[in-house]
């Protein structure tokens, strides 16, 4: 009857639930280096296109703007693998710890 003991114990134990979206946000486990939403720094980018070359799912689209070639990141295709961050020689791409990525539009998250 080891199960009986355990459920008796849990009757008086503190809940394991984190009341996430409304309360107790600070209890959510977000370690350093979590691979979340991409942030792109246009100033550092030199247009070397390495990110696009190594992106496994084609989420980096290359466009030309007034300063030359640059990537646009389509998060609906992104795998959050951080390969672009790894290959970027200038550190222009960074994956932040933001994970709350819900939207009603497929194209809602396009990082420019």
């Amino acid at each position, binding site marked *: 009857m080891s199960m009986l003991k355990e459920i008796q114990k849990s009757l008086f134990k503190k809940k394991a639930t984190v009341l996430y979206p409304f309360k107790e946000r600070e209890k959510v486990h977000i370690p350093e280096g979590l691979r979340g939403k991409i942030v792109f720094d246009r100033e550092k980018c030199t247009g070397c296109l390495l990110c696009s070359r190594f992106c496994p799912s084609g989420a980096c689209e290359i466009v030309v703007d007034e300063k030359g070639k640059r990537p646009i990141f389509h998060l609906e295709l992104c*795998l959050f693998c951080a*390969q672009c961050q*790894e290959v970027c020689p200038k550190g222009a791409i960074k994956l932040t710890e933001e994970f709350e990525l819900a939207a009603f539009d497929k194209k809602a998250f396009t990082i420019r």
Partner: protein
Amino acid sequence: MQKEELRSEDKKSSYELFFDIPVGPQHPALKEPAFFKFKVEGERVIGVDADVSYNHRGIEKALEQRNYIQNIYLIERICGICNVAHTLCYAQAVEQIHGKEIPPRANYIRLMIEELARIHSHTLWLGVAAHEIGFDTLFMYVWRDREVVMDLIEMLTGNRVTTAINTIGGVRRDVSDEAKYKVKKGMDILEERLKYYKKVAINDPTINARCSGVGILKPRDAIKLCAVGPTLRASGIKNDVRADDPYALHDEVPFNVITYDTMDVLARVLVRVDETLESVNMVRYCVDHMPSGEVKIKLPLSPPIGESVSRVEAPRGELIHYARSNGTNKPERYKVRTPTFENIPSVCEMLTSKNGYEVNIADIPITLASIDPCFSCTARMEFRDVSKGKTWIWSLEELKAHCKKKGI
């Protein structure tokens, strides 16, 4: 012709009503789109027919069209749960073609993450198995404690499930001392909980009633049908790629190969729980003995012409990758064979009643679950069990027409 034979036999025993019970692609017992069609007679299962084409995504073709770095992430998405085993296997295959050894620290980190992933996979399985037999409380407890290892993986790699840690020539992230401390602390919690779950699995009357004597796979059949992994070890055969064909550092890190010889679902539960305990010890060993140094060597994008076979003991059993390169930055051919694919003939054997061995409808979910099926891995399999030399296949329409004719 076959159908007619079936009907004529049906007439002989007209009091028996045959049913098809479809399980999947959407079915609570299988969280994955495989499709099993069971032929049942009352509550007794007399035939099984499986189709796994629902999950075929054409990965092997896609692998030939992407370069070696992109392929890491594609390989990872073959299976989310055993992604570490897949990337490890892939990295080894490519490194073998390169003919290069990776630094020892990288090997230790690889092994540590692999074993953490094994703990994650086995505890996940334990919870799902409990859910299959309706033991929701145990399911909730196991998954609550599983969060410990999920947090560790998230801390070490940056994502809870898809780790993306292995790369060609080493690993992508180093492990800090603080992280090591947290890993050890997490292992202590896990060890205590796992010992408790082992006690529950052995002692609980309802678990025993549901699991022992169910889903028998005899050692002879297991070898004949090429079963792998815990399914094979629960039939009493000592076989583990980590011991037979050591990769990474498995010849240095001590561990035991767990076998049980009762051949049933309970044996598979216990094999997995014990293996998890072994993995806990291996992770501890890795943390203690990790040397310092580099974690990655730089390798050219295009390996030389060559071929290699790489094998890894994934949580579900032996995983094998075959790679052939042609000197460009894309592989010529990349072949993946996953453990579930190899185990499906065995599970069909387990699920067919014959010679005094009875299978109940209620046993289907737990028996299917007992091989820890991962059809996303497999993605390419259909099995037609031949019962009495005939295939039992009826579409729903045919069954209905048949029932109407009989006035049922």
